[in-house]
């Protein structure tokens, strides 16, 4: 196959795979392939010692369009938002007579602890009501999702809903953004990210202690002080040192392997074209200079 044909095939196949992947399993995030996501420090409702407080709420409303619920997208003001709800147009089930939908998201103290795992971050109460206070829910066909961002260094977590005093896990996907997860919901109420047992929060910009033990699943916002990561002396990380060491290590590893490889004898050179036979006839274009005899 010629290079252009292979290129055309790759372009067509690549675009087809992109479209199929986006349609069949769309990631919640933007078209992010390796962007640099910079997250503000996680804001806790009741922070562990040394962690930031100031978790914020969000509220908005949308007018019903005809008989359909409107497109809704509401998120808390942190960067990126720590809690968001999305509803596609027509995917909300509303009580009769609904003219507008009020949306609120607020961090609340946990009413219960999960049987397994640790609440990672805040519990958020999602409330969608009609103008008269009637409860609104999402349709079972999907189309309504919530997204929660947890504290830094949260590789895996499950979004769970507090249902009658028990935390119930929801099918959860990474949102394509670090520490952020998303799930389809039908009912609203209290939601939280539940991390695996033993998880402890890591303060952004600081390394976790090597002996960080399992967090006591006490209060959601009270990670075990003994296991609280990050130094509490207020000193920042040696960023330049870490960066220099990381880059230097990569260079050394790569250079070392390449040098070792280049010590091997060079590969065979493609056979040269046979040299033309020596020309015995003198060319008129390049006359040889005859030695002159001295007389």
């Amino acid at each position, binding site marked *: 196959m010629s*290079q252009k044909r*292979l290129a*055309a*095939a*790759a*372009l067509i*196949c690549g*675009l*087809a*795979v*992109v479209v*199929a*992947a*986006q349609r069949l*399993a*769309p990631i919640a*995030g*933007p*078209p*992010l*392939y*390796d*962007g*640099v996501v*910079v*997250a503000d420090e996680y804001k806790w409702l009741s922070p562990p010692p040394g962690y930031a407080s100031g978790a914020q709420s969000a509220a908005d409303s949308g007018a019903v369009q005809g008989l359909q619920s409107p*497109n809704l*997208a509401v*998120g808390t003001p942190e*960067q*990126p*938002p720590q809690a*968001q709800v*999305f509803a596609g*147009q027509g995917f909300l089930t509303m009580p009769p007579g609904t003219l507008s939908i009020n949306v609120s998201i607020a961090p609340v103290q946990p009413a219960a602890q999960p049987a397994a795992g640790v609440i990672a971050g805040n519990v958020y109460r999602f409330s969608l009501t009609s103008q008269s206070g009637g409860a609104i829910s999402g349709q079972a066909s999907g189309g309504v999702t919530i997204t929660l961002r947890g504290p830094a*260094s949260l*590789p895996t977590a499950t979004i769970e809903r507090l249902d009658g005093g028990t935390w119930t896990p929801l099918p959860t*996907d*990474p949102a*394509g953004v670090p520490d952020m997860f998303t799930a389809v919901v039908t009912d609203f109420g209290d939601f939280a990210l539940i991390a695996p047992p033993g998880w402890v929060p*890591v*303060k952004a*910009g600081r390394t*976790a202690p090597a002996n960080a033990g399992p967090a006591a699943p006490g209060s959601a916002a009270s990670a075990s002080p003994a296991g609280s990561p990050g130094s509490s002396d207020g000193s920042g990380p040696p960023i330049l040192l*870490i*960066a220099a060491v*990381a*880059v230097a290590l*990569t*260079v050394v*590893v*790569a250079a070392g*392997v*390449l040098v070792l*490889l280049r010590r*091997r004898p060079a*590969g065979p*050179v*493609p056979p*040269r074209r046979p040299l033309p036979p020596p020309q015995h006839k003198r060319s008129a274009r390049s006359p040889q200079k005859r030695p002159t005899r001295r007389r």
Partner: protein
Amino acid sequence: MIAIAVPDRGRASGVAIATCLALGFAVAVRWQVFRTAALDGVTEGLVFGLALIAVAFLGGVRPSIPRIGALAAGFAAGGVLVVVSLAARWPFPPIVLGHAAPFLPWVAVTTLVATGEELALRGALWRWVAAAGGDATALLVTSALFALIHAPVYGWSVVPLDFGVGLLFGGLRLWFGGSAAPAAAHVLADLATWWL
């Protein structure tokens, strides 16, 4: 007549493996930084980007002036990726990302990381894998690696999408014969996240 030295397959395979190892090491460093939250996002990206550039340079990539046509085609392809991503979720709005970073440093580091990935993957690694096994092999290997290196930070759910993007970028690399077109597409798609 001057014979052009062509690397033999054995040596090309060795250098390709070395480049893969260096790339893997750079990804591992980034994963460790991300997992421990040792650095903020911009610094993490700066470290990763510089490591990728180093891998590309050691893999034989040298700076050159890109062709305008390749850049234009790359930006067009990046725009297509953004449109496809938005259209696929219609009518749902995208999540709000809201980068907590100053714009210009973020732009610089995002551009560095995206360009570094392209130079390392579809520059250095492509060259040696193609020399060892042909362009089709290079296309599949770099596309698969492109998908895999994103899994640690962004989750396994991005692997199918990023494999497709890798094929698309590989097609650009094949068509235009260099890393400029895929790098332009990659940069645009990543920079779009600031506004989406």
